[in-house]
């Protein structure tokens, strides 16, 4: 099990599931999808450098405000300042923190996306991913069953996970099949604060 720091756990549980909202908001503030993703990435980088992350009350709301501020910074640095985008942005309800239009995807819809992504994987990568995850097999068991060396398995698992991550990024996938056994976002994350 890879080691996650509390901030990584928090990022996965509290920030990433709302990614579709960030992208939609960033899209209004930028010229194209790539720039929108850049802006979101920039906000994440800042977020992960914060000391006070644990005290943030509404992480999605915080990210949305960051996006807006970052976009303003970019506009000010640009040679020709256009506030058109900001005016447009303010007219939108994207800053509203109610997640109505970006409600967490229904479990079935998410499941479909995950299955589709799994189906797209090269067979050899998929076998390793599924044996490890679904079969809960140890590396030794997988190596024995597939006749592959550990270093080959390592490469296939890495490749499989990279492709899946690529396919599922920006989807706001929140299903936690792992611990709760329930397809909903019922994990309550680390809410520790130092005193």
């Amino acid at each position, binding site marked *: *099990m*890879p*080691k*996650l720091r*509390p901030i*990584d*756990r928090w*990022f*996965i549980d509290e920030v990433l599931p709302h990614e579709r909202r960030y992208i939609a908001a960033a899209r209004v503030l930028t010229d194209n999808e790539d*720039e929108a993703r*850049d802006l979101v*990435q*920039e906000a*994440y*980088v800042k977020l*992960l*450098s914060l000391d006070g992350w*644990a005290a943030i009350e509404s992480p999605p709301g915080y990210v949305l405000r960051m996006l807006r501020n970052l976009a303003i910074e970019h506009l000010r640095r640009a040679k020709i300042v256009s506030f058109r985008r900001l005016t447009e942005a303010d007219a939108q309800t994207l800053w509203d923190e109610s997640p109505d239009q970006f409600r967490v995807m229904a*479990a*079935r819809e*998410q*499941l479909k996306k*995950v*299955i589709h992504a*799994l189906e797209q994987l090269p*067979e050899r990568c998929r*076998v390793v991913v*599924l044996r490890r*995850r*679904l*079969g*809960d097999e140890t590396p030794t068991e997988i190596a024995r*069953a597939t006749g592959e060396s*550990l*270093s080959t*398995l*390592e490469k296939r*698992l*890495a*490749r499989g*996970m*990279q492709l899946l*991550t690529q396919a*599922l990024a920006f989807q706001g*996938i929140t*299903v936690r*099949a*792992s*611990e*709760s*056994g*329930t*397809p909903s976002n019922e*994990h*309550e*994350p*680390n809410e*520790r*604060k*130092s005193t």
Partner: protein
Amino acid sequence: MSRTNENRLEAGDRIATEAANWWSRLELGTADPDAFNRWRESDPAHAIAFARVQATWESLPRHGSDMEAQLAGRSSRRRFLRNAAAVAGLGLVGAGGIFYTSRAMAWTRANTAVGEFRRVRLPDSSLLELNTDTLVSWRFREHVRDLRIERGEIAMELVTGAPITLVAAMATLRLSPGSFNARLVDGHVGVAVLRGRATASVSVDGGAVTAVIESGQSAEWGGGASRIQPMTAAARERLTAWRDGHIVFDDETLEAAVAEYNRYLSRKIIVADPSLAAMRVGGRFATSDPTAFLHAVSVALNADVRSDAGSIQIVRK
């Protein structure tokens, strides 16, 4: 955004590849943890890419999950393979005819790293909380709910339903619905009944002893000792403080307090001097940050606190 598009894409791809490689090596147990930490610390983009891979992993169905059951339900009939030999056919078969296999009746696991805290909803909607450095598993079926603590500490808020069994090393406990705290640390088992009742069967020297722990009592086994006692209000607070991120000491030796604190810290505190170790300490501190504790110790015990990359030492002035 000063980088060109191409550079940006290349850098993003490179980091995504590195993250997947690190993740895979950690998952298969072949990674060098220190090298990984250096890589992750060197750039927030690394940590983000790594977290994405982990998030993807967690979104995949795991055996025993509702999602797996749904996957099974997707196939035209109930083609849910139950025997281990069929795992050889693991994969997605035919167009739309998708099914997975799993070992029947497998256990579901949850864990925390040192310093982590986690709350998990069990399949019957009971609540499970994991303290630092904990590994717990469960298997809930229609007529029986099994829980197993492999290390660390858990709190359970159990709802009414099938009989519940909790196994912790040499102790097997039957739990009623209610609220419980259980720990397995250094071979010692501790159980506190905040509400409800626990019936314990403990193997001792080849035999087994049975005991009932009533609401408001706590029990400990291990190291040749075995005792059941009523919980004072202070003891109750000490036992449950971790659930809101605190650690409480009540006239304990510095040695015992530090051992308890170290459960939460990856950089451990060391008490070098035996005469300091025997001093008594008390207070309430945050599990996530020992600064206040160390300050209190240095002032109250007139000690020096020195830290380096590997540890924090408390020494005589």
